[in-house]
């Protein structure tokens, strides 16, 4: 039975974690995502589900607690906002290198530096191109509603375990703070130790005399063996690119122009489409749901059909680079964005389309 709730995006993440059967949450408060930890503390899931909720002493501690929990085959997560996520990059690289699953939520605020607490999407490069060192990727999901904040917790864990790789929910201050209607699921039980032991031979679940040692590490001093690790990880990424690209298309059938936008920018673009179409501009929206793997193929196909694309992001222009790569200079592609915590108005987006793409040379 589905229950309807009115919730903030942040609260939806916390509620989803409890109901999905997550084993552990480790985090440190930071605006604009503190309601996640607050909601978890208020709900106190431990007596109900056995889920551990712990406020760590720092973001560095949080991500390393996640590393430890993940090594045991547990479903563990952390959440933070931009400066805190920067602190976690070393840990994320280690977790990716050790091929462990986990979920990290970034409710992005304006940067660089401590920046502002207002919404931003300026962490696209960090999230999709590897914020830490080494050849690794995060599987990055971009929710654009409170319902998706809820749903993508489960999806993020499923993908993380499918590829044994960290997954990230890349949200922003708007999606974290806005309240919308959410359908919540019934409580699912956490995985039992027996289930983990049976399903994940890579997990450190206690030494069995009939099996070799399980050693979780991202250290491999033998170059030949390290290259094999890299090849295995890359093969996994190619599989993910083949099987798990997700996107949404709105009003693309008759479109002459396309907005490419994710998260709250995609919501603003939906309003801009209503306004643009009232003026007779045939414009649609391609909304990447996975930012990595990026919906390159569909953008390539669309580039044969439309006259131009406008990447709308609350940044100085980051995702636009992937749009240009996908469309191979076949059509005009420009970026429009505001930054520093300013949210572009739908009217500004329509004007940008008119001046940069339709009227632009």
């Amino acid at each position, binding site marked *: 039975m589905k229950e309807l709730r*009115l919730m903030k995006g942040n609260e939806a993440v916390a509620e989803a974690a409890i109901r999905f059967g997550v084993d552990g949450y480790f985090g440190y408060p930071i605006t604009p995502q503190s309601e996640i930890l607050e909601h978890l503390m208020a709900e106190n899931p431990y007596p109900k589900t056995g889920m551990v909720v712990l406020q760590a002493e720092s973001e560095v501690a949080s991500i390393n607690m996640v590393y430890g929990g993940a090594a045991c085959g547990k479903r563990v997560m952390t959440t933070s906002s931009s400066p805190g996520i920067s602190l976690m990059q070393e840990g994320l690289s280690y977790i990716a290198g050790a091929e462990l699953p986990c979920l990290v939520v970034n409710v992005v605020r304006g940067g660089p530096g401590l920046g502002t*607490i207002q919404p931003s999407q300026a962490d696209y490069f960090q999230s999709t191109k590897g914020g830490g060192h080494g050849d690794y990727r995060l599987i990055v999901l971009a929710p654009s509603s409170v319902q998706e904040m809820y749903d993508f917790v489960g999806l993020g864990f499923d993908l993380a375990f499918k590829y044994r790789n960290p997954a990230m929910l890349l949200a922003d201050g708007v999606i974290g*703070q806005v309240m*919308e*209607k959410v359908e919540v699921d019934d409580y699912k039980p956490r995985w039992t130790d027996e289930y983990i032991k049976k399903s994940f031979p890579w997990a450190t679940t206690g030494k069995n005399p009939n099996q070799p040692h399980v050693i979780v590490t991202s250290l491999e001093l033998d170059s030949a063996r390290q290259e094999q690790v890299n090849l295995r990880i890359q093969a996994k990424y190619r599989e993910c690119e083949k099987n798990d690209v997700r996107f949404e298309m709105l009003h693309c059938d008759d479109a002459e122009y396309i907005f490419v936008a994710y998260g*709250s920018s995609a919501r603003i673009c939906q309003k801009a*489409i209503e306004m643009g179409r009232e003026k007779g501009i045939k414009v649609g929206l391609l909304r990447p749901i996975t930012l990595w793997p990026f919906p390159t193929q569909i953008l390539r196909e669309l580039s044969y059909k439309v006259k131009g694309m406008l990447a709308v992001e609350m940044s100085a222009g980051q995702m636009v680079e992937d749009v240009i790569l996908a469309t191979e200079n076949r059509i005009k592609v420009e970026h429009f964005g505001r930054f520093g915590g300013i949210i572009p108005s739908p*009217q500004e987006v329509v004007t940008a389309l008119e001046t940069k793409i339709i009227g632009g040379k």
Partner: protein
Amino acid sequence: MTEEIIIAGFGGQGVLSMGKILAYSGVMQNKEVSWMPSYGPEMRGGTSNVTVIISDTRISSPVLSSFDTAIILNQQSLDKFEKAVKPGGMLLYDPNGITHHPTRKDINIYQIAATDKAAEIGIAKLFNMIVLGGFLKYKPIVADEFIHKGLEKSLPARHHKLIPDNEKAIKIGMEIVKPYHVI
């Protein structure tokens, strides 16, 4: 039907909770809703505002720059949001503390002396519900029974005994709201 509303005033006036009760009432009536607060430095002492959207169809942007209705509870907010009301839209304000009254001629403007009334009958905490009543008189976008359910959902159970008082304050608001300039 889509109603795009900004509610703006001082922190502590109940701006956010008024919006939440309205939004939850919308959910109860099976509408699509969105409630987007200002959460920036301004909420740490100073002005506070919330954008509430209630619609029969999927809501696009939760962040807006023009509104069908502005509910205004202080001078700074009036200065900021009077110009953001769509032509033909509605501006509802409490004249308490207002020295520069609204001047637009292309919108419907209503006054509600909620601060005075709340003080007079000793229900200062229900000030925001009086204002909500004023709004609902002219824009009955959610029915009374769903307002009741919205109150049940948005107030913690220990405060449910106060629901009749909240509903009474809404009734009072409907009685005392009056036109200031109507097109």
